[in-house]
């Protein structure tokens, strides 16, 4: 009887680990250093399950038209005090309702973001986050479906 229970427990445990492997979820911390484009430029990102979308601290934002398309040029400054200039077509503009009730209109661009070994296009909106600690906020639309967040950890898939 005891032996049967023991075997049963073993089956459960092995079943569980098999399930964990099958889903191939990557556990990230609530802070990670991500890479932008293929440039090797790093940004400290807050992984925020409370945000729908991702947003980035953009400085010196200038808008221009190229071949009839709306483009935007802006610069980033990271925690290591390095600048990086990005020029991208504007995907759309989004209206974000702020906590104080004001509505802010923001440009949305697509940015290649690498988090650990996974590289994917993130839709990010441009915002003045200069009064915040972290220049990049990664929201749920980027995280689904492969990332899960362990809020007790930081820099689990990236170097500090």
């Amino acid at each position, binding site marked *: 009887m005891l032996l049967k229970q023991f075997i*049963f427990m073993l089956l*459960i445990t092995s079943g569980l680990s098999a*399930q964990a492997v099958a889903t191939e979820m990557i556990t990230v911390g609530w802070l990670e250093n991500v890479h932008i484009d293929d440039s090797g430029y790093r940004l400290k990102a807050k992984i925020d*399950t*409370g945000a729908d979308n991702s947003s980035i601290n953009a400085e010196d934002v200038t808008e221009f038209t190229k071949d009839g398309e709306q483009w935007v040029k802006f610069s980033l400054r990271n925690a290591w005090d390095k600048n990086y200039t990005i020029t991208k077509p504007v995907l759309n503009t989004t209206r974000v309702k702020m906590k104080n009730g004001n509505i802010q209109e923001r440009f949305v661009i697509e940015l290649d973001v690498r988090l650990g070994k996974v590289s994917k296009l993130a839709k990010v909106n441009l915002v003045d986050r200069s009064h915040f600690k972290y220049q990049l906020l990664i929201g749920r639309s980027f995280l*689904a479906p492969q990332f899960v967040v362990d*809020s007790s950890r930081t820099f689990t898939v990236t170097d500090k």
Partner: protein
Amino acid sequence: MNKNRMPENRTSENRTPENRISDKAIIGWREWVSFPDIGIDKIKAKVDTGARTSALHAFNIEEFSFNGQKMVRFKIHPLQRDNDYIVVCEAAVIDTREVTDSGGHCEKRFVIETPITIGNETFSIEATLTDRDTMKFRMLLGRTALEKRFIVDSSKSYVLSKNINRKKGIEK
């Protein structure tokens, strides 16, 4: 047939909490939770790794003293679309704290400590009280409350909410 024996068709899925990573349970980005000690049977929480502390959207917050203990009495609308349903809560104040919200605004808030039930687990959490009525969710579950027990899968909702939805009706 011996009733104590495990039925053959019981699989690991219905025997153990599904979706566990290491020793932590998977939680969705929205969950129904309850606060047994302050009379909140059911409130929808946003699971927010972007916030350190948890927050409750309270109103008519008043401080009082009971046996020398600093207390706070406040009201809550636990249901987003039902402003007629009000729960009056009382809890001990363990701290007052300056909290900066996502808009960069700083606010002094009371901090209470009270048990929360999420899925099958009940444990104590700290929560700040705020009366910002622009909060869409009446409850934010922050990193400190999550860190020992949960891993957030933001592609899912109500992973741990099944019990609360089924068993606890809303008493008006």
